Structures are given as C-alpha cells and as structure tokens.
C-alpha cells in the first residue's frame, strides 16, 4: 500500500514538476534575454487562467477558442508590460528592477482578487472522462493533458531556440547585447518579445493548473515555487529550469510522503522547497547548469 502511494506521489511530482519546469523556462527566458528577475511570473499564470475562465463562463466560448484567445491576450499583455514598465528601467540598479516586478506582482494579484473574488472557481468540465487508468494508477485526464502540453511546450522551446530566426536572435541578445545589435538585431524588440512569449506560455501553464485545481489567487504561488527550481537548475539555463522543476516537484511529493507516513508535521511539502533553496544557495549558488559569474574589473 505504502509503496504504491509513494509511486503515485512520485508520478504526481513528475507531473507537477513538468509544470514547474514550464514556468521555470518562462522565468529563465526573461532573465536570459533581459536580465530581469521576474517576481510577477505567478501573476502571468493567474491572469491567463482568469481570462480563459471568464471567456468560458461568462461568454460561453468553447474551451479551445477561449484558450487561444487568452494566450494571444497574454502575449500582448507581456509586450505592453515590458514596454510601459520595464523599458524605462533599463540600466537602473538590479534592486530597482526586482522591486518593480514585486510591485507588479502585488498590483495584479490584488486586481485579480478584486475582479474575481478570493474563492477558487472550478473550470467548466472539458474532458469527457475525469480519470484515466494507466498501468494500474488513476491519473486525472487533466494531468495527462498538462504533461502533454508541457512536453509540447518544451519541444517547442527547443525548436524555437535551435532553428527559428527569432529564437537565434534572442539567444544572440542573451549572449551579448552589443554584438547582437551590431548584427542588426533590435535588442528592444527582443526584450519585449521575451516578455510576450514568457507571459503567453505562462498563461498556458496557468490554464492547465486552473483546470486541475480551479482558478484562484493560489495560482500565483507557482511564481514563487519556481524560484527553488530555477536556482537549482541555474538561473540562466533553460534546460536547467526543466530539470530543476522536475526535481523540486518530486522532492515536494516525497516530502509529503515522509510527512504523512512518519513525521506527521503537516504541511511539510509546502516548505521543503525553500529549505532546499537555502541549501542550494549555500553550496552551489549558480545551480546545476548555470554559468558562474566571473567579474572582471
């Protein structure tokens, strides 16, 4: 019984972990392209999920259109945010930039609470069957979809950065802004685009989580949970974000297992990633795949 519970929890961890990985990738995308640590990543999930939910419940739009519309909306939202709020701060000290994203985070979180209330709202049912049995384990079809979507996004990112022109331009910008500019890449556009893509992809993750757990302001907690994942993987490694996300997802659930079976402290799985975060920062602050900052004078 207990070992099957453990297995179930590890699978849950992997499913949640892929979602952490996706949000982590979005986070790293912004950091790599524009050197901004985005504390408002969770709000992207939140706003995306609420948009989709609103379209589906208030306007009775079919899921797929609502989904696509909210992605498009978040793309524009990300672009607008970068242009209006982050662009004036280019060149400011890192503390200011961090604090602006924190300000954005509270602002939008409160706005969403105001507009939609504090209670979790369930998505209208989307799948014909709620649960599917795979290898003798009950898996919610929403989870199955979430894993599918996450893997698709990861594959899409890999293709985008390896082969597409814009993706390459973005990598060049991340490598060196001066060199990129001298090759005719518009760094301003790349900055804005990275925010747009990041917001849009986060919205996908937000909708997926919303389908599973219902939409509520708890979604924005994802944006904070993503920190342990990206620090573990290395702040500027997209691949690292995925690996870190998976590890943190599994770690959470294994902690949950030990907690429920042996320790009975309660709530341990919520806090374990932060202990892990402190330990990582103490031992290996640049993470598994991150590049070490070397400062020259």
């Amino acid at each position, binding site marked *: 019984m207990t070992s099957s519970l453990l297995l179930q929890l590890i699978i849950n961890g992997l499913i949640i972990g892929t979602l952490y990985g996706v949000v982590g990738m979005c986070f790293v995308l912004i950091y790599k392209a524009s050197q901004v*640590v985005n504390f408002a990543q969770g709000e992207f999930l939140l706003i995306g999920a609420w948009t989709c939910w609103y379209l589906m419940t208030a306007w009775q739009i079919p899921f797929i259109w609502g989904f696509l519309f909210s992605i498009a909306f978040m793309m524009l939202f990300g672009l607008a945010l970068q242009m209006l*709020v982050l662009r*004036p*701060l280019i060149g*400011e*000290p*890192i*503390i*200011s930039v*961090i*604090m*602006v994203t*924190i*300000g*954005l*985070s*509270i*602002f*939008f*979180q*409160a*706005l969403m*609470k*105001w507009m939609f209330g504090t209670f979790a709202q369930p998505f209208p049912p989307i799948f014909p069957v709620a649960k599917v049995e795979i290898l003798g384990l009950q898996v919610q079809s929403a989870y199955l979809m979430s894993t599918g979507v996450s893997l698709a996004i990861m594959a899409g990112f890999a293709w985008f950065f390896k082969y597409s022109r814009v993706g390459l331009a973005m990598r060049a910008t991340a490598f060196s802004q001066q060199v990129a500019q001298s090759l005719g890449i518009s760094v301003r556009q790349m900055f804005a685009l990275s925010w747009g893509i990041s917001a849009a992809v986060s919205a996908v993750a937000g909708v997926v989580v919303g389908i599973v757990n219902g939409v509520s302001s708890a979604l924005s907690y994802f944006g*904070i949970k993503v*920190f*342990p994942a990206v*620090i573990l993987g290395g*702040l500027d490694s997209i691949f690292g974000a995925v690996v870190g996300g998976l590890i943190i997802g599994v770690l959470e659930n294994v902690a949950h297992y030990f907690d429920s079976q042996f320790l009975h*402290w309660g*709530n341990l799985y*919520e*806090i374990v990633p*932060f*202990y892990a*975060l*402190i330990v990582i*920062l*103490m031992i290996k*602050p640049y993470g598994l795949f991150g590049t070490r900052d070397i*400062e020259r*004078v």
Partner: protein
Amino acid sequence: MATDTLRPCGDYRSSYRADQTLFTTRLTLACCVAGVVLLALAPLVLSSYLVSLLIQIGYLGIAALGLNILVGFSGQISIGHAVFYGFGGFASAFLAEHGVPVPLAIILAGLWTTVVGLLFGLPAARVKGLYLAIATLAAQFILQDFFVRAAWFTGGSSGAVAAPFTILGFDFSGDARYFYVVLVFFVVLYVGAANLMRSRDGRALIAVRDHYLSAEMMGVNLTKYRTMAFGISSFYAGIAGALYAHYIGYMSVEGLDILFSIQFLAMIIIGGLGSVMGSLLGTIFMVLLPELTGALAGALQGSAIDQALHLKDGITYLREMLIGAVIILFLIFEPDGLAHRWRQIKAYWKLYPFSY
C-alpha cells in the same frame, strides 16, 4: 541614493569634521530638538486616534529604517523583513512571559532577532543581488512556517499575549502613555542610525554598496559588513516588532506575510533609499495611504463609481493595488524618493530667486 547630492553651490566645508557633523547647521539642530519637543506635547492636544497613528508611524518607521540600512546603505535586498519584525514581537512576548521586565525584554528581543537575522544573512556573505533577494524570500516562508509550528514560542495559531509596558510599577499602557515609550526608542534609534552613517562602519557600508570591488581593495571586509548590515537591520526590525507587540498586547502570525515585507520595501522606496529621513517620510506616506483610501471610499459612498466598482468590498484590494502602483510609479518617476524632493525644495528656497 547618496545623501548629499544636492548641496547648493557656495556651501563649502573646509574640514572633515564639518563634512561629517550630524547637524549641518545650528538651525537643523534646533529644528530637530523642536520637532521632538512638539511631538512630546502631541498626546496632550491630539485625539487618541491621531496619537495611535503617530505610534504606528513610530514603530513602523523604526523597522523601515532598519530595512533602509540594509537596502539603501549597504545595497543588499531583503524580501523577508516582516518575519524579522514578527520574530522580535514574539521574542519579546516570550521573554516577558518568562519574567523578564518588559523594557529589557524589548532590547533583548532586538538582540535575539539580530542573531536570527545573522543566521539568514550568512548567505549574504556568499551571494549578492538577486540571489540574496531569493534567499530572503525563502527566509520569509521558512520563518512564517516556523511561527505556525512553534507553539511554545508563538502560541501557535492563536497568538502570544504580550505583557503591558511598565517601568518600576508605572504602567505605560494606553495610547497617550505608550506614545512616549515609542518616542524614546524612535529618537534613540534614528539618531543612532544617522550617527552610524558618519562613522567608519557606515562609510564602509556605503562603499560596499557603491563599488564592492574597490571597497574590498581599500581594505573593507566585505563579508563582515554585509552580514553586519543584516544584523543591524534585524535588530531594528526586532525592536519595532517588540514595540508593536507590547502596544497591541498581543502578537499573532497573521499579517506577517510577504505583503507586509513588501510594504516595508515600499516605505523605503517612497521615502528614498539611503536616506535616514526618507525612511520616516516613506513610513508616514504608507501609514496615511490606507487612511486616504478609506476617506476616499467614504466620500464616494453610494455614488455611481461606488456602485460600479463595489468599493466597499474591494477596499482592501484597492489598498494592495495602491501599494503596488506606488512602488512602480516611484521607481520609474522618482527613484530617489521623497527625501530627494525635500532636498530640492530646500535648495530652491536657499537660493531663491537665483537658482544657481
């Protein structure tokens, strides 16, 4: 960020001593003393509600100054100031419960919080900038979780009772009397901070902020000063939390969330990073902001705007949004905060009508 960016021309100083004095002219000294005296008279004339606001400004201002020493003067960032504030409150309540006299308990609570702050500040010795921000974010969640768990220390979810403030049997409870307690701590800690900044240690902190490599080459011990800034900031937060606990008579986990930490950050951004007086100005702004929104919502009650926006239910969210918006707007349009504006006004009048 620097303190003396806007010195009007013609204002020369010919010795280091003159450059470093706490009060630049006799008039500023007189103004400060007069301000304190006026404040000391305040409870006699002001209503109890206004005095309670002043008390609130007092203890929050102390905590904000602590954060400003960390963020504004030493260039590090902490997103977990509220939990240190909370720790001070719980520690003082805990000590007072175990027989320590309250005035002593407040100071001991400050020292105890310093130790905890140093513990979490240890990563500061290794990492900096955004890594430190993330480490303090983790501290916020870990300590918040600890408060809920450690029922022996914090009374769990029901909270801890803090004994009233008494000296030699004289009871300082009640707004009008407790005001003087806060005022004493406030003046001592503010003068202390202003004094620190003109000492060798204070200059070292600023050097670390401005260019840490150069500072290190000049013989400033980076690890020492970074952790020291954390310690001082936690001390201020702890004292402020303890003052709050003994004022309310009760300390609970509720409200020590990340939003409160961000409010402290908002105070120092609004007031001006790296300015002692800015910490106070920012605190006044942030304490009055909810009052203003409350008054505004009250004025609009029943009108069309009220009906459309559900102002009554949304007022808490409106306040949170305002905090966020104020942080963003100040950082974009007035990154040096109110303190900078104040210096500009002073310089303007000093040179009026010829501004050069």
